[in-house]
């Protein structure tokens, strides 16, 4: 049996160096990107199940879902969307600065991205708080009247599942980017060694993409009725 002792150098290559199995840094970077996309495909499927369940329930109860959708806070939802879209550009500027060896700018913009993510979670927390006082949280405090009170409960179940899991993913993205910001500040990444940053950026954009679909599905459709 071939046993091989793994020394510390097997876990981490020096900055910009190529692992043994790759021909060049570009191939290594491409492989990492494809691996990240495979992971993100599983994330798309994860949210896809929630979206499919939402669409099926909506097709079965269109009037009730439209009425429940009108109870969501459009102003806060719109601000959250705008904040996430801005964070997409700040992370890009941060990664760009690291590639140009402008470490301080990189740290500033990556840190700003983390702050924008925290701002999103804070605003969303305010939404949850308002929902709690309006007795709109199924299983904890749900008291509604009217012909659609039961269908609205279904809507709010989906609302909390979808937005809750999105917020969890955003929190993971915040933690990852906070770690990346610290590593950039320490000089761990640079012109030739920024793949991990790019992958963290891809994950951040994925979380944005999910919200781009969540916002119209939960907050906008049914608003005109």
């Amino acid at each position, binding site marked *: 049996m071939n046993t091989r002792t793994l020394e510390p150098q097997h876990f981490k290559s020096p900055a910009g160096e190529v692992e043994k199995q790759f021909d060049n840094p570009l191939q290594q970077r491409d492989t990492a990107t494809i691996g990240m996309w495979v992971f993100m495909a599983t994330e*798309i499927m994860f949210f896809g199940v929630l979206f499919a369940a939402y669409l099926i329930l909506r097709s079965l109860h269109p009037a009730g879902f439209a009425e429940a959708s009108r109870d969501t806070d459009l102003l806060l939802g719109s601000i959250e969307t705008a904040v996430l879209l801005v964070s997409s550009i700040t992370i890009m500027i941060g990664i760009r600065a690291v590639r140009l060896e402008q470490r301080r700018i990189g740290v500033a913009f990556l840190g700003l991205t983390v702050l924008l993510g925290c701002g999103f979670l804070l605003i969303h927390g305010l939404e949850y708080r308002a929902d709690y006082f309006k007795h709109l949280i199924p299983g904890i405090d749900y008291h509604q009247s009217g012909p659609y009170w039961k269908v609205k409960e279904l809507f709010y179940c989906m609302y909390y599942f979808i937005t809750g899991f999105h917020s969890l993913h955003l929190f993971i993205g915040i933690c990852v980017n906070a770690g990346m910001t610290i590593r950039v500040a320490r000089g761990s990444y640079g*012109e030739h060694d920024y793949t991990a940053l790019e992958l963290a950026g891809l994950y951040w954009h994925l979380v*944005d993409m999910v919200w781009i679909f969540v*916002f*119209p599905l939960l907050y906008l459709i049914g608003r005109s009725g």
Partner: protein
Amino acid sequence: MNDPSRQGPKIKPISLYVWVLVGLQVLLLIAIGTSFVNLGVFNIVIRLAIAVTSVMLLMVFFMHESRARALTIMTSALGFIWLALLVGLSLTDFLVRIPVPPPW
């Protein structure tokens, strides 16, 4: 630095990112504005068209899909293809299902 095998994606100007952000925010405003207009079935179509356009902007300009290799593009499309299959096939059942009352 000039070794082609070390070159990553080309560094784009910040102005491009700013223009994409402006486009995304305009799309957001259009989505919010049109949500108050009753367009019947086109309400959901317009909203989803705006969402798909926004996602395409993100993927092309921020996720480097425009200059990615064919294998990367195919891999990134996989998740969306599976999602389309999941939602499409599920809805083909639920949208055409006719409730049949029990005979007793």
